[in-house]
């Protein structure tokens, strides 16, 4: 009774409450706008920095800097060391015999005089050199496209196989009515609390031994490369706590009568999964895709350990590039930006699914 009285207290109080609520709301929006700007800033800075030459990186750049011209008194060695100038490519473009050796201290002026090359031709070759140096080095001097191809290959196959296998697991565990089903379910739950680092070393040893059994694995070549990629895919599709939880609970929620009537109509379990379960599992499938796609695409530790450098996916390649061009941050930032962009485009195109999938997945944990 006392409560009911309180609830119908004078309207004056109600006004202040609604004002307070409105104020809180304005404050909340303001904070979130600021947070959003701070969140986007690193991406913008990364984009700009991929065009800022190392030499100018001690100054603040909020936009792509004006391309400075490469002066004729720059030394070839300096350009090669700090800007990863591809000397073979330069020789070809300027018509210098590829067998000729250019001393590191040779300036561009001296090159022009020695080989009788007009200054304009050199200037033309070096147009935009400082600004686009990072991108040029990345796209020409590294196996960037190969790495992208392998990343998409591994991530795509892993995603499809993982979902297929996880649906089968979910079907096998549906209901969790028996002791053996509970046991298997709890085994999968363990995955959530086992850090990848704990099993990395023994897992590596085991996988190496198994792969070693296959003929042709020891020798460099396509067999070795394919086997390594298969090993990586197997690790990706082994199932996680999340995949098991999502599909087990989704399939448990489907009325038993549907399955029974399908079997009475003469369907076998595979047909039931393919034609009846699959269309009903759209939401959990999307949930898993939006969580696993970034995980597979951004995988670093496992491919870094399991794949040879000439067979690597995107992120290990970036780490190799960073080691190789350690003084040229322009290349590193270009590579990082290039690695981030494809997934962000996918994310922005399908953001509705990401939001729904993540919120649905978060309930399951």
């Amino acid at each position, binding site marked *: 009774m006392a*409560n009911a009285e*309180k*609830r119908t207290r004078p309207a004056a109080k109600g006004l202040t*409450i609604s004002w307070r*609520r409105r104020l809180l709301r304005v404050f909340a*929006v303001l*904070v*979130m706008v600021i947070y*959003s700007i701070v*969140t*986007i800033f*690193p991406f913008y800075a990364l984009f700009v*920095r991929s065009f800022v030459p190392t030499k100018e*990186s001690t100054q*603040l750049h*909020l936009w792509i800097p004006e391309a400075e011209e490469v002066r004729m008194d720059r030394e070839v060695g300096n350009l090669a060391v700090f800007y990863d100038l591809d000397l073979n490519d330069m020789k070809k473009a300027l018509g210098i015999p590829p067998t000729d050796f250019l001393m590191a201290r040779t300036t561009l002026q001296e090159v022009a005089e020695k080989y009788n090359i007009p200054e304009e031709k050199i200037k033309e070759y070096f147009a935009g050199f400082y600004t686009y140096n990072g991108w040029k080095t990345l796209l020409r001097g590294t196996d960037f496209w190969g790495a992208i191809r392998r990343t998409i290959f591994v991530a795509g196959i892993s995603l499809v196989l993982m979902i297929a*296998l996880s649906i*089968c697991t979910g*079907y*096998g*565990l549906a209901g969790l009515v028996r002791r*053996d*089903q509970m046991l298997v379910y709890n*085994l999968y739950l*363990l*995955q*959530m*609390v*086992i*850090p*990848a*680092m*704990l*099993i*990395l*070393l*023994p*897992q*590596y*040893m*085991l996988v190496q031994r198994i792969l070693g059994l296959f003929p042709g694995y020891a020798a460099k070549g396509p067999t070795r490369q394919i086997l390594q990629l298969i090993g990586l895919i197997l690790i990706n*599709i*082994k*199932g996680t706590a999340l995949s098991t939880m999502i599909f087990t609970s989704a399939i448990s929620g489907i009325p038993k009568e549907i399955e029974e009537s399908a079997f009475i109509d003469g369907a076998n379990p595979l047909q039931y999964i393919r034609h009846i379960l699959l269309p009903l599992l759209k939401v959990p499938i999307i949930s898993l895709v939006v969580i696993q796609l*970034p995980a597979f*695409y*951004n995988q*670093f530790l496992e491919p870094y*350990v399991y794949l040879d450098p000439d067979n690597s996916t995107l*992120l290990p390649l970036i780490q190799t590039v960073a080691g190789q061009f350690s003084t040229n941050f322009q290349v590193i930032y270009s590579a*990082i930006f290039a*690695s*981030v962009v494809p*997934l962000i485009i996918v994310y922005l195109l399908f*953001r509705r699914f990401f*939001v729904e999938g*993540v*919120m649905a997945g*978060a309930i399951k*944990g």
Partner: protein
Amino acid sequence: MAARKGLSKRQKRTILIQWAFLTPQLVLFVGLTIVPFFVALPILFTDMAQFNDPQINPVGFRNFVALFTDPSVQRDYLPALQRTLVFVVLNYSTVYIFGLSLALLMYEVGFKGGFFTVIYLPLMVSGLAVGYMAVMLFAKETGTANLLLLKLKVISQAIDIYSREGTAFILPLLVGWRYAGYNMAIFLTGLLGIPQETIEASIVDGASYLQRLFRVYFPQMWPSFILATTMCLIGSFAVFDELVAMGALYVNPEAKLLSILFFTYGFQVERLAMGMTLSVETFVPLVILGVALQRLQRRLQY
């Protein structure tokens, strides 16, 4: 009761079919997650130095006690442990500073897809890229954030990411930034599950916002808190990619956390068995804690 002892033909068939379907993934899962443990067990008692060590000798429990007796191991392990614990604490606080605050703000404005899209965006970035972004923003002389903050006179001295404090604070800041959307989703799900009537009632009764938080929201969000804790705890100990990008494997000793130590023992400095033992000693208590948290969460949920 009778049905329990002798399963009918149909029940047997169902069990058989279910096992046929769950076996393929289970073989992979057990083979690649559980079996490695048992493969590793005998190695913990040897001096195996690298993956293709030709000569392996048994050493009894030496690896297990090395943590307490061997100064060379202590020199590596203890500072790494200290850094890891500092990171765990700071990273755990970012779960609340970013995740919980954003969830509460979002709840107050009503669910907005646009904000969600932006806040969740950093989760599309790899750990490696986050590490390089940290360097890009906070390297002492070239960091964009440093230069910007100096220009705006927010800070008077540039932050150095390669210094002790720099690494200790910037790393959790950026990792927290990356997982902000994920943690927000966890807390937001908890908030959205609270019955609307209890909130309205507390407002009408004149509860202040803080009272509402501690008396109405938080007590009804326990599963979210436990889930966020479990994920953060396990994730913090396993942080690796960000550290590699910050130069932990070579140039930046301040970023050498435990995960880096285990990696280098296995792949770089030829102390494989020791590295495995140390990782077991570190992580097994953590796995037990994780399982306990998981059980607690499930009990609270149902």
